[in-house]
């Protein structure tokens, strides 16, 4: 580029040169070999380095901690070996962690910029990714494959903890001794109900929760239903059974990812949204 700039200046057309015609530049084998072989070697080197580091990135060590990852519009869910489910990924420091990921709807992509890892999460198959965090701390997780309205809010965190704290976190029962309504609030935020259901009365992808409890809701098929405990439970576990009028059947099921106590807490939370 420097050479081009210099030649541009040196060989610019000066006044009086209007009829000047340039001679073709002669062939020079030495120069051509220099500018072909040099970059060629550099590219082979880069390719080699890329492949070796890529293979290290793809093959997880045998002693990795395994975590199941489920993606859905628009939240991440992590399940550990003991059945514990969290909305943030907890990982022990200095130990390899292997994620086995699948999507319940469209394609998502699990991306931790700080760890330089990314892998698409595809419905109907499992994809894997592994990392080993070397420092305790909290790291950003993005969804990197466009997945609709709240794609840019499909965020989470990796929380890297020292081994003892990690074990305590994964084994703790976070619903014990907590008021039901607070459990419900955590579900509302952690399962990203808030990306589709507002608390202020404005409809989003789904109906707002404000004043929903006890209401007679008109359904898309022309019938109606009273919003009570059983309707809410059904809507969480089998969301497309009854569709509220004016909305699309797009909500994913939460079968298997919420325990009874979570659902009971969520119902209490809903009652509080007057």
């Amino acid at each position, binding site marked *: 580029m420097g050479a081009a700039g210099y030649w541009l200046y040196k060989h610019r057309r000066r006044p009086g040169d209007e009829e000047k015609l340039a001679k073709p530049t002669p062939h020079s084998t030495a120069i051509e070999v220099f500018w072909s072989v040099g970059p060629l070697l550099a590219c082979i080197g880069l390719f080699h380095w890329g492949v070796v580091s890529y293979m290290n*990135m793809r093959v997880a060590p045998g002693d990795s901690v395994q975590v199941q990852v489920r993606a859905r519009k628009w939240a991440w869910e992590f399940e550990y070996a003991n059945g514990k489910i969290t909305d943030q990924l907890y990982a022990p420091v200095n130990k390899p962690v292997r994620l086995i990921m699948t999507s319940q709807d469209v394609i998502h*992509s699990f991306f931790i910029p700080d760890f330089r890892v990314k892998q698409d999460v595809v419905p109907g198959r499992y994809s894997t990714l592994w990392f080993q965090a070397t420092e305790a701390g909290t790291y*950003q997780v993005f969804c990197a494959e466009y997945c609709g309205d709240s794609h840019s809010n499909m965020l989470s965190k990796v929380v890297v903890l020292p081994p003892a704290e990690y074990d305590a976190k994964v084994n703790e029962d976070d619903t014990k001794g907590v008021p039901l309504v607070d459990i419900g609030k955590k579900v509302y935020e952690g399962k990203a109900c808030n990306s589709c259901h507002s608390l202020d009365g404005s409809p989003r992808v789904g109906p707002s929760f404000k004043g929903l409890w006890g209401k007679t809701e008109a359904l898309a098929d022309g019938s109606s239903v009273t919003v009570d405990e059983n309707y809410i439970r059904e809507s969480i576990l089998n969301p497309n059974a009854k569709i509220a009028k004016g909305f699309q059947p797009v909500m994913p099921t939460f079968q298997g990812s919420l325990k009874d106590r979570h659902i009971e807490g969520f119902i209490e939370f809903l009652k509080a949204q007057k």
Partner: protein
Amino acid sequence: MATTDIAVPAAHDEPKRGLSYLEITSGLKSWLLTIDHKRIGLMYLGSVIFAFFLGGVFALLLRAELLTPGKTFVDAKTYNQFFTLHGTIMVFLFIVPAIPAALGNFFLPIQVGAIDVAFPRLNLASFYIYLLGAFVAIYSIITGSVDTGWTFYAPYSTETDTNVIPMVAGAFIMGFSSILTGVNFVVTVHKLRAPGVTWGRLSLFIWSLYATSIIQILATPVLAITLALLIMERAVGIGIFDPKMGGDPIMFQHFFWFYSHPAVYIMILPGMGVISELVATFCRKKIFGYKAVALSSIGLALVSFLVWGHHLFVSGQSEFATIAFSFLTFLVGIPSSIKVINWTMTMYEASIDLKTPMLYALAFIWNFMIGGLTGIFLGVLSVDVHLHDTYFVIAHFHYVMMGGTAMAFVGGLVYWWPKMTGRMVDERLGRVSWALIFLGFNLTFFVQFIMGARGMPRRYYNYLDQFQKFHQFSTVGSWVLGLGFLVLLYALVQSLRSGVKATSNPWHSLALEWQSPSPPPLENFEAPVVVTHGPYDYHLVKTTNT
């Protein structure tokens, strides 16, 4: 080598001339039913400029929305439609047809010394197929729009409640226009060369259009199949991309990129051809390594079919396929760098005239070099894993397409404008537009490399606060860029209204199209052409009046 002496006609001995192609008939019907490749080229030109304006408005809107995280002035769904429409319009309505169908239609037959393309009626049909596709696509925008991104990835595109079918049908229809234009060009180059226009005397613009046409003919049908499958999936649920029915969403990506990667070369190759013309004319020198530059176009066309898998490095395709695609991707660097090095070498000891078109050619070389080198980053596997689907990719793509092809399009437009319209573009306005566009472009996109390397994912309506200063910088850059295009538009309109009348050869070029009057007569030349030298043989010119 033959030592034929060539005399460049000076300004005072303008050839005697009859009516130009613009004057010979008039009225709306004489345009709408014309089979003259020049008029069809101009109608394409008007259409692609309108498409560029429309796509540009969406670009400015989406950049404005990104001034702040969260809502600036539209909601997430509208923003998602903005970037989808920006991408779809720019790719299918502007950049694919821009240089081949507009400038190529006009100049390919003239540069081979022919009266018209091989199949003039087919050429008009291509134009109307393009228009039909464009109208169907615009119909989709008016009736509910699209929010899938221009890539239409399944299963999102089969699930979303926006109006995907007409948009995809529009792209499907426009594909046929592209195929037919390709066929027309290939036959024209093979069959209609005037006496003396040997393969070794074809302009590099024609070589690049020839390579482009091959890709258009071979790759576009695969896009048509893919889009037809997507329509069937959405309309009747055939399940080919739906895992619930045994289908595979990754297969859509393979199908899509099997066309869309070669399509990137449909977009860039004609631009490279234009740059070769500009560099030769404004350096008044034979292009360094003519044969290598010509064959590198064909080389790029071939390699373009073998690298689609580099869009799927993190999709879950097999590691072995990924490594093979990475290796093949590195091969793209060879023909690309041959071109850049040979343009640069052409400038060495040349007689360089920094007129507006040459400035755009230099902008192309600068931007394309940044776009090309960052492509190497993306080809290195482990680096791509981090950069994939971030703003780094956005910046890389725009450096090649916007900084490359769009610069070449504008440079070619200003260069050939006198031939097409018979009037010059004001040099001062041209340079101002160049400065604003070049500066604005780099302000807008360079910062996106940094943002992407720090992990900012693409297609994000909301973003973390740490990225705001980069986004704001980029948005301000987009205003400078937009202003530059407005100045250019003003310069073109002003040229049409009151521009200086052009002589037949205002740039003193040796290329064949400049040996005909400006604007050319209906049959392109006043008399049948016999060519005795190549388009860049400046060293053979006998200087008569120094």
